């Protein structure tokens, strides 16, 4: 029941009672209530005219990093007796210090500023409007207003810097980069010999080979190094990521994807991201720092999803990926994914699977009793079999036990080959 309605009800009841009993004292009883009500109406707040500025110490932060939010409010309208200000932001953020809400009295032309500190998990958070509610002292009348001030805070996934990732695609782009293009030309690594052509630098001449032939000079050819198209596919399916007691591998997959994107872009490649789960979220391929920002923003928003349409990998839209490009799937994998990945490989894509190990992840939380160990061994065998089948199909597989840091695993398995192996054109 509204306070105004209650007071009016009491006042009229007393008035009617006074009339019914012809007793003027009832009116006397109603008068203090009437005075209270009228003062409330008289001092009712006018339309709010507030100027609000919000600044955030950092629009990009790491998970659980403190971000200081400062809010400045100026009253450009009439005096406000009681003003409740509440800054609006996502409930997923935690207030670490200060308060987003304040109750104060603000005279015309006065300003009020305050700061508070928030932190939160990975995500994209919008600071929408500042909610302002003005009241008179009696609380009879109030005026509520949302002042639109938009800010955004991106909490990016933690990023592990990877120095170099070796990939070999069947097709490269025209720009020079770091990926061997299987074509002779300018480069660093020896590729082959060809007849010397006018314009070749003299230091390219292979004097030993030329000495064996009369009147013919031979020049060294080097392997061209170019950039490539890389499509990162982040598996966000609930069935592959979620385990008992609400534990999830998804954050590890996001970390791996972010690190890979950063590394591939640093090498000059054209990188796109497909988040496959609740729906398809495709970040169009691009180069450089802007693309890095786009991918990190997409990863900040990435969530798992249980859509029945995308429960299998068969709906991966291959038309998004350039022909013969490198596809990197980050997924804990499911038995049903084997056929789809083999089909992708058969279409000519160079497939790499980075698979956070779900068996080791789940076993780490289970009691070490014989039955669990036996079950673990069986599941481990099934997974090993799946990975072997993938490798036999020509798919590069990296089984990542998340107990080990991602950068170390990548350095060991996908880092630059030692110089000895580089001379023979690859690694073991």
């Amino acid at each position, binding site marked *: 029941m509204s306070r105004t309605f*209650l007071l009016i009800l009491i006042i009229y009841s007393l008035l009617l009672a006074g009339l019914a009993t012809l007793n003027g004292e009832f009116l006397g009883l109603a008068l203090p209530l009437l005075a209270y009500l009228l003062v409330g109406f008289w001092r009712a707040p006018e339309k709010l005219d507030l100027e609000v500025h919000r600044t955030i110490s950092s629009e990009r932060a790491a998970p659980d990093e403190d971000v200081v939010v400062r809010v400045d409010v100026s009253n450009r309208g009439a005096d406000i007796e009681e003003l409740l200000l509440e800054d609006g932001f996502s409930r997923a953020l935690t207030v670490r210090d200060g308060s987003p809400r304040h109750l104060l009295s603000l005279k015309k032309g006065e300003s009020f500023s305050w700061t508070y500190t928030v932190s939160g998990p990975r995500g994209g958070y919008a600071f929408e409007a500042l909610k302002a509610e003005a009241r008179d002292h009696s609380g009879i009348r109030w005026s509520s207003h949302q002042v639109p001030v938009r800010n955004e805070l991106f909490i990016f996934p933690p990023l592990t810097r990877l120095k170099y990732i070796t990939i070999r695609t069947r097709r490269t782009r025209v720009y020079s980069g770091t990926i061997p293009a299987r074509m002779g030309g300018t480069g660093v690594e020896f590729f082959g010999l060809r007849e010397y052509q006018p314009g070749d630098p003299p230091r390219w001449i292979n004097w030993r080979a030329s000495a064996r032939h009369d009147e013919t000079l031979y020049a060294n050819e080097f392997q061209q190094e170019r950039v490539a198209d890389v499509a990162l596919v982040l598996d966000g399916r609930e069935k592959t990521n979620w385990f008992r007691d609400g534990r999830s591998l998804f954050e590890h997959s996001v970390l791996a994807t972010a690190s890979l994107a950063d590394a591939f872009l640093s090498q000059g490649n054209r990188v796109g991201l497909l988040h496959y789960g609740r729906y398809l979220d495709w970040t169009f391929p691009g180069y450089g720092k802007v693309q890095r920002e786009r991918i990190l923003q997409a990863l900040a928003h990435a969530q798992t999803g249980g859509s029945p349409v995308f429960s299998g990998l068969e709906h991966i839209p291959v038309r998004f990926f350039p022909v013969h490009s490198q596809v990197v799937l980050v997924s804990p994998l499911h038995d049903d994914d084997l056929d789809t990945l083999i089909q992708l490989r058969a279409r000519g894509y160079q497939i790499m699977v980075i698979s956070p190990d779900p068996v080791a992840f789940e076993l780490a939380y289970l009691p070490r009793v014989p039955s669990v160990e036996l079950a673990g061994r069986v599941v481990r065998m099934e997974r090993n079999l799946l990975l072997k089948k993938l490798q036999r199909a020509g798919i590069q597989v990296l089984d990542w036990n998340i107990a080990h840091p991602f950068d170390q695993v990548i350095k060991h398995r996908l880092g630059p080959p030692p110089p000895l192996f580089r001379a023979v054109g690859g690694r073991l």
Partner: protein
Amino acid sequence: VSYFAFVTSVLMGVGSLSFAYAGRGFDLVARGLLVLGVLWLFAGKQRWVWFSTIALLISVSLAAFGLWIELSPGWMISGALGALLAWDLTDFMRRLRFAPLMDDLRPLERRHLTRLTIVTVVGVLLASIPMLVRLEFTFEWIMLLTLVAVLGVTQLVSWLRRR
């Protein structure tokens, strides 16, 4: 400060009514009012804001009934005023709870209590007029007041329907 004012208001409201009723031999009502006061204080502590509305309705009703059975008008008005103040302060304390601990609420509380005191004084003065000046309700006065009451109720109903 606000809680102290709230306790004082409850004591003033319930105490005045109880004293007047006990003076006329309505011991049961007086005891009931004291129980209401205790419950009101307990509800204030427990932050049951809704209880204040019920207590205000009961207090004003008993003040009106007291006037009808010709109990002292001063005590009745004092009782109704105390209940009004306690009801106001309950809501004010509820609003204060929205403020974080670091806010300095003393100026806000001081201004509120000053305003409330002024309203109380004005209310008492206004209420004293009909007590001191005994007006005879002539037929014209009754018609005028009835007309005002009917118009008021009609306005109230239309306002509620619009909401």
